[in-house]
């Protein structure tokens, strides 16, 4: 039997959340949010659509809130397995600082609000895409794929790949080839990125019963698949050059970072045991973040800041 509460206090189970503001911000996964805002912004500028800057800014705010909502709903659903993993056990819900019901209400309110507001501010194509992305991440990925298949992050990666399309749709009302290519880049980047982390954290995932690729197919198969996805990613990363929306700066940055990405994926494939294998996986994980950032930042600089110098052959 649990001890009786002190006089004047109600049992902890009947209380509301005691977390501070930073706990609610943590529920929104701010680092994921920043990546979503960044890629959506690049989607806005590569389409070259003319739109009032206030509308573009407000649309970005709604996309950010929608991304936060999906992160919050993901944390609400995954609280049980988050409590089992060292990487996630200090999150606000498993740590008891925020009640699950409050996180659910918070996430749903932000999801519905952001989709409706984006529809009213920009257009309903962008709002529909944002709503579908939240649904895809929270329901298709979190509730279904994550615990049922080793292909979870491959298919679920689509959720992270939609923001450039949402950004372009918000400012132009349509989706062009440019953001389809950006979608493909993020989609094919996701498996090498997450599987590199999963190779290092496989015991964590095993404890939580999540069927990540290293736990299901084994580390060697995962290393081979990381290399294959990286090889598939590289031509997509260079595709903006072929389709005329990547200039001289993009040629240099994408060329060098693609070579580095391939070299690190080969290193992960070759080093299969002990500390060197963990270090290689950590290096690939860290560089993969930089790779995506460099590609998108270069496109942003070329299209958003007038630094585009077209290549001769396009």
């Amino acid at each position, binding site marked *: 039997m649990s001890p009786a509460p002190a006089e004047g*206090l109600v049992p902890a189970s009947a*209380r509301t959340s*005691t977390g501070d503001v930073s706990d609610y911000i943590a529920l929104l996964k701010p680092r994921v949010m920043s990546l979503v805002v960044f890629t959506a912004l690049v989607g806005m500028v590569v389409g070259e659509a003319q739109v*009032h800057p206030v509308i573009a800014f407000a649309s970005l705010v709604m996309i950010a809130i929608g991304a936060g909502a999906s992160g919050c709903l993901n944390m609400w659903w995954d609280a049980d397995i988050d409590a089992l993993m060292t990487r996630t056990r200090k999150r606000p819900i498993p740590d008891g600082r925020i009640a699950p019901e409050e996180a659910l209400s918070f996430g749903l309110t932000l999801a519905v609000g952001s989709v409706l507001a984006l529809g009213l*501010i920009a257009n309903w194509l962008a709002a529909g895409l944002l709503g579908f992305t939240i649904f895809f991440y929270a329901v298709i990925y979190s509730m279904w794929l994550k615990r049922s298949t080793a292909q979870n992050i491959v298919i679920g990666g689509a959720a992270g790949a939609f923001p450039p399309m949402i950004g372009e749709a918000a400012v132009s009302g349509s989706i062009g080839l440019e953001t389809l290519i950006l979608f493909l880049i993020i989609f094919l980047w996701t498996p090498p990125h997450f599987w590199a982390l999963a190779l290092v954290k496989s015991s964590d995932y095993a404890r939580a019963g999540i069927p990540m690729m290293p736990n299901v197919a084994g580390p060697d198969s995962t290393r081979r698949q990381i290399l294959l996805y990286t090889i598939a990613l590289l031509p997509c990363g260079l595709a903006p050059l072929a389709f005329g929306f990547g200039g001289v700066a993009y040629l240099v940055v994408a060329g060098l970072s693609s070579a580095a990405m391939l070299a690190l994926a080969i290193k992960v494939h070759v080093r299969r045991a002990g500390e060197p294998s963990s270090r290689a996986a950590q290096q690939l994980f860290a560089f993969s973040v930089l790779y995506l950032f460099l590609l998108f930042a270069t496109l942003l600089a070329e299209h958003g800041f007038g630094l585009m110098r077209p290549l001769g052959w396009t």
Partner: protein
Amino acid sequence: MMAGDDRDPGPGLSPEELKRRRARSVAIALALGALALLFYVVTIAKMGPQVLNRPL
């Protein structure tokens, strides 16, 4: 709580929890204020000069 303040301190909340609740309330107020400002600016941006065009 200040002396003479007869507001309900909440269901058995400690001073630290009360402080956090107040911080949450301030954050919600600021977020709502920011959203109201954003919607106002968006309305002006969408309507443009038409916002001044009304019958007298």
